[in-house]
């Protein structure tokens, strides 16, 4: 391989989106991928097929990636483009997504590196056969409601309850609120654990993701207490959805389901 320091233009790298067993090229038709004008295509690597695209090397250097991943719009564009290709490929069968920004100097290098890991890919592909990933997020109201009927029959604010006084009533109220908040948090934790335990029983594998803070969701009226994701056999998905409906009714919590996802969260575990 000869260096071509004088001619960076026109040099291309090979971006790898995913690896699968069989791929119908038709599913990739029209996908933009990460570089306009370069087709997204299959690349045979022994028994496997990689989903790849040529990209201009000069636009995919480490510095360029740093900038791209630090810019919200650019990052979103990349993530969606990557996801679109991965998802399209998965229509043909089990698919292992590669980490964002997996790049090689060319098709030959990609083929070598992927071929060297063929055994690992085979294990993962076997594991993902007939499976998809389903995300489940659980929310509770952001704040505990003030105790409407305190257990200790607290004096009514402003009422002339004997032996009280404004200061004492105030403290009582503060304590009541504090207690309510603690109970709210305890209940929320239990709810999260209940939901996760119930769904874990149905899943082939499970992962807890970091819950999204209110700053990330932009929501102040509710708190995310569980952000989990489950690797589900296809025939168990309806069971998951039914269980979620039951949990909604039993716990009163908001439970959101998303899926099917290509099993991103379970592809790197082998």
């Amino acid at each position, binding site marked *: 391989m000869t260096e071509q320091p004088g001619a960076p233009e026109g040099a291309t790298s090979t971006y790898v989106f995913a690896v699968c067993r069989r791929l119908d090229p038709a599913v990739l038709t029209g996908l933009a991928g990460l570089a306009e004008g370069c087709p997204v295509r299959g690349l045979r690597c022994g028994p496997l097929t990689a989903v790849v695209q040529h990209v201009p090397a000069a636009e995919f250097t480490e510095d360029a990636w740093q900038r791209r991943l630090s810019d919200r719009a650019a990052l979103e564009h990349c993530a969606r483009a990557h996801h679109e290709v991965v998802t399209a490929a998965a229509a043909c069968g089990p698919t292992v997504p590669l*980490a964002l920004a997996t790049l*090689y100097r060319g098709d030959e*290098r990609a083929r070598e590196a992927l071929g060297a890991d063929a055994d690992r890919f085979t294990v993962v592909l076997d594991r993902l056969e007939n499976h998809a*990933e389903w995300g489940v997020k659980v929310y509770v109201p952001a704040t505990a409601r003030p105790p409407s009927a305190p257990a200790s029959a607290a004096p009514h604010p402003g009422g002339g309850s004997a032996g009280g006084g404004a200061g004492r009533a105030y403290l009582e109220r503060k304590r009541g*609120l504090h207690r309510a908040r603690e109970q709210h948090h305890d209940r929320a934790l239990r709810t999260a654990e209940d939901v996760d335990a119930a769904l874990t029983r149905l899943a082939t594998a499970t992962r807890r993701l970091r*819950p999204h*803070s209110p700053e990330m969701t932009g929501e102040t009226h509710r*708190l995310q207490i569980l952000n989990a994701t489950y690797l589900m056999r296809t025939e168990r998905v309806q069971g998951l*959805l039914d269980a979620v409906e039951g949990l909604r009714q039993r716990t009163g919590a908001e439970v959101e389901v998303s899926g099917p996802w290509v099993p991103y969260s379970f592809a790197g575990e082998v």
Partner: protein
Amino acid sequence: MSTVQPVPWETPGPLTGPIGVPLVDLLDRVLATGVVISGDLVIAIADVPLVRLSLHALLSSVSERVPAPWSDSGPL
């Protein structure tokens, strides 16, 4: 409270890329996961630390405190 709210993808559908997958859910998966293989050459950009770093830059207010999203939910 227990009324049915709109839920994304409640109905199992084909694995075609749903438009409007929430970005934050997408980043949970696309950024932090996938098989990391001995990146060639160009860069080991798939290194998780780098990606995490960028995610933090992106969502500068992301909390490090994993288990307690409500801990600073303010006064009641």
